[in-house]
């Protein structure tokens, strides 16, 4: 049976999103397709799958990403959905724990990819706020300010996490 749920997650809460998907799988609902804020589930054995999210360097349908996704398939990791450059991946829980990264270096690289996505949006919105304010565009600039500050919050969250990983990396590689 198909179950469709709608839910919103901020980019900086993508690990909460993972947690939520894994919780659903533990309850017997396996994610099989995604849309904008839309999650399609099919019934599965309780805890049959483990889920992870990754922001790819390129669009999931690009040749580079295809090569990577084929590589993941070899390791029993399947792509069930995507949203822009984000992919939703799953693996059978019977095959053991599911991590995409096993050292700090690659975790940091993934965070950098996310930061490169978020920082330009933040700067663009804060910049448009300043320009709009000078041209007295009414309430519109404040919309930019709100989006800009929200994204800035996300950037700070990711920077804190990156810093934590960097400190760990100074004494241990994984």
């Amino acid at each position: 049976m198909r179950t469709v749920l709608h839910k919103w997650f901020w980019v900086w809460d993508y690990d909460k999103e993972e947690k939520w998907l894994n919780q659903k799988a533990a309850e017997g609902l396996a994610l099989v397709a995604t849309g904008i804020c839309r999650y399609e589930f099919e019934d599965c054995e309780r805890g049959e799958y483990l889920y992870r999210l990754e922001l790819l360097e390129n669009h999931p349908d690009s040749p580079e990403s295809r090569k990577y996704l084929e590589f993941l398939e070899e390791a029993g990791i399947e792509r069930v959905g995507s949203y822009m450059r984000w992919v939703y991946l799953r693996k059978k829980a019977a095959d053991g724990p599911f991590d995409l990264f096993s050292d700090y270096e690659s975790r940091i690289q993934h965070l950098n990819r996310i930061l490169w996505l978020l920082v330009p949006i933040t700067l663009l919105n804060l910049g448009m706020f300043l320009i709009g304010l000078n041209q007295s565009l009414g309430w519109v600039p404040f919309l930019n300010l709100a989006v800009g500050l929200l994204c800035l919050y996300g950037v700070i969250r990711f920077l804190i996490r990156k810093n934590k990983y960097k400190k760990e990396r100074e004494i241990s590689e994984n």
Partner: protein
Amino acid sequence: MNFANGALTEAVYYILLSLLEARHGYGIMQNAEELSHGRVKLAAGTLYGAINTLLEKGWITALPGAKNSRKKEYIITDAGRQTLLRELARLEELVNNGKALLKEESL
């Protein structure tokens, strides 16, 4: 990955060791886990990045694919073998120093 100081990461060390024989990606993961008695679990994303870096460095090379297999197999090159030998010497130094000094301490 930082090779500047000559120390290999654990992932790279086990990948190179695994590729003394031709293996595909998943084979490398299994072999590393087996060699380390379950301690080293290379995650797929980390392994993919490392394989690409090692290909660029010329320490490993991709074998021409078998006809009915999509899976790519890799094998170590001479340069990779040299790197492994240098790393082994470095590791021996670490182990010998550790053993010698800790023994002294426990006397």
